[in-house]
């Protein structure tokens, strides 16, 4: 179905050590990203989507720790790499876009310095070439007056401008894949759309694959080719974007879509709430973690952890999935 995946994550588990015990923050998660593909990763806060992204290039901050799993980039096992080898992967082969443009740039160094340092680390370029490329990148991310921007310190730029620089920093060494962790969450609606537009443009230009982590279903609906849904540390559904929105198979996915305020087709608005709240990693129920909130839960859901199985064109981890809705 898919050619050789660009990124392949298999059985990834992440633990949080607290007072001698390991709490499962992420549990046995597997997914692939094809070359040039945009994979959306959605879930509510605490679902494990951000740590999954950080784990790919070994950016977990203790007490978080990868406890199991294989991560391969074009067949190269990232999980087996030494720190030195990892440095050559970060930035060069895997780019990373951070959430908050206000805190993710170094406040005391100029934009130019940060951009050139990153390129110098990965690309063999002379200083004039470096400067030219830096100017080029500033222009490519849509900022006017690139010479001035390179000399500027981060605080002299607006939030939107900074996020453009963050994107340039993530892409400037021409990585094969970019992991974007909530890239638009800290931005206002009007600027968010600009940023998505820019990311889409650069994605078309470079062909870089992307893992787009977000809690905003609207963002994945517009950007992703396929979507993975996380709940309480597990991947519970993965499918093409169109299939997922038109016919969600996992009751949680359906619930999430229903809970997002949207026009109901008759000129009104409505939301359907999911009762209860997502359990914390220290209070996971036995069986399916969603069963206490699930309208379709039955006795077996309380005891059996549902595996991810192929359902139609996608996969879902549910013992009693919703029937497939045929597209209108």
């Amino acid at each position, binding site marked *: 179905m898919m050619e050789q995946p660009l990124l392949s994550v298999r059985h990834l588990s992440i633990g949080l050590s607290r007072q001698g015990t390991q709490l499962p923050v992420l549990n046995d998660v597997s997914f692939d990203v094809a070359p040039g593909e945009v994979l959306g990763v959605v879930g509510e806060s605490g679902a494990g989507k951000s740590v999954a992204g950080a784990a790919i290039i070994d950016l977990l901050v203790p007490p978080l720790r990868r406890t199991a799993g294989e991560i391969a980039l074009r067949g190269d096992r990232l999980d087996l790499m030494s720190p030195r080898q990892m440095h050559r992967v970060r930035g060069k082969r895997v780019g990373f876009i951070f959430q908050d443009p206000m805190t993710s740039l170094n406040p005391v160094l100029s934009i130019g310095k940060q951009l050139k340092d990153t390129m110098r680390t990965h690309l063999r370029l002379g200083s004039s070439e470096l400067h030219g490329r830096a100017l080029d990148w500033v222009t490519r991310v849509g900022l006017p007056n690139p010479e001035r921007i390179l000399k500027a310190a981060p605080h002299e730029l607006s939030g939107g401008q900074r996020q453009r620089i963050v994107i340039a920093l993530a892409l400037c060494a021409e990585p094969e894949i970019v992991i974007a962790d909530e890239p638009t969450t800290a931005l206002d609606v009007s600027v968010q759309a600009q940023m998505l537009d820019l990311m889409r443009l650069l994605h078309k230009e470079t062909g870089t694959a992307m893992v787009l982590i977000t809690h905003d279903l*609207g963002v994945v609906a517009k950007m992703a080719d396929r979507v993975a849904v996380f709940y309480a540390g597990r991947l519970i559904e993965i499918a093409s974007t169109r299939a997922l929105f038109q016919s969600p198979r996992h009751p949680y996915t359906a619930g*999430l879509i229903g*809970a997002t*305020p949207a026009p109901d087709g008759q*000129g009104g*608005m409505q939301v359907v709430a999911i009762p209860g*709240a997502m359990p914390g990693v220290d209070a996971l129920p036995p069986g399916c973690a969603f069963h206490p909130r699930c309208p379709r839960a039955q006795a077996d859901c309380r005891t059996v952890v549902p595996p991810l199985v192929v359902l139609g064109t996608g996969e879902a981890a549910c013992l009693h999935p919703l029937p497939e809705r045929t597209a209108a």
Partner: protein
Amino acid sequence: MKLEGVDVKAVSKTFGGKAGAFERLLGRTPRGLRAVRDVSFSISRGEVLGLVGESGCGKSTLARVIGGLLEPTGGDIAFRGVKPRLQMVFQDPFSSLNGRWRVDDIIAEPIRTHRLRPKGEVAGRVAELLEQVGLSPADGVKYPQAFSGGQRQRISIARALAGEPDFLILDEPTSALDVSVQAQILNLLRDLQSRLGLTSLFITHNLSVVRLMADRVGVMYLGELVELASADDIFTNPKHPYTRLLIDAAPDLDPIDRTLHPIPGELPDPSRPPSGCSFRTRCPYAQPLCAETPPPLRWEAAREVRCHFDLTPKSLSVPA
């Protein structure tokens, strides 16, 4: 006597702008930040007025001015009928509850302050309120730290209801919450609204939320009210370019039409707003007139628009 309505009359709020001793010596006055500029509207009894806008548009400042937490630098707030009891629900579920107080004391504070119930009945009323917002009366003995963000917002709502408010201000009450929890709180608020008939002001940056919650909606940009109309009118037939662009900018859940509609440019520095119309720097329909004259607020059929021109579906497709 009951509260008949709330009139916000030409309210302005400027932060800073006072010269220090040294600056006075040199005859300089620093620019103030004009967070709210000459905003007027009315809320009638039992109505929910929504205010929507992006960060920095002054909506939260305005909420605090109306709530009496900030003194306006110009204009005033008039309450028709009685001197009303106000209550407010805030955005941050953590800072809005005093962590050193027990939940039942937090909820009882407005009851005790206004002596709304005899002493012996306070505990019973608190238990009733806890149930009304979907918590258990046994939760009263806990401290706020024991609750999640969504539960804390329920406590905040219970506290607000405890004050039996004539007028309720909701300042981004669901913005800090996850989608599934946000939906619970929105439904709770809608339910309370229809049962208690509260007069309220609902502030949010989320257009879908305001459409769900409000009877009428005001749109703010850079401290000004640029459009005010019924929720249906605002969303189906926006008259101000900013309203139109803002509605389109938020990505919907349609995976087939994937067009993005960004608003060009960025919010200008609120301490130095553009000349003329404050939206002209980002407006695709801006004309020379827009830079020269600030557009007046125009009234037409229960709607107010601050724009020189009529925005028609035609002008949308073919920018002038």
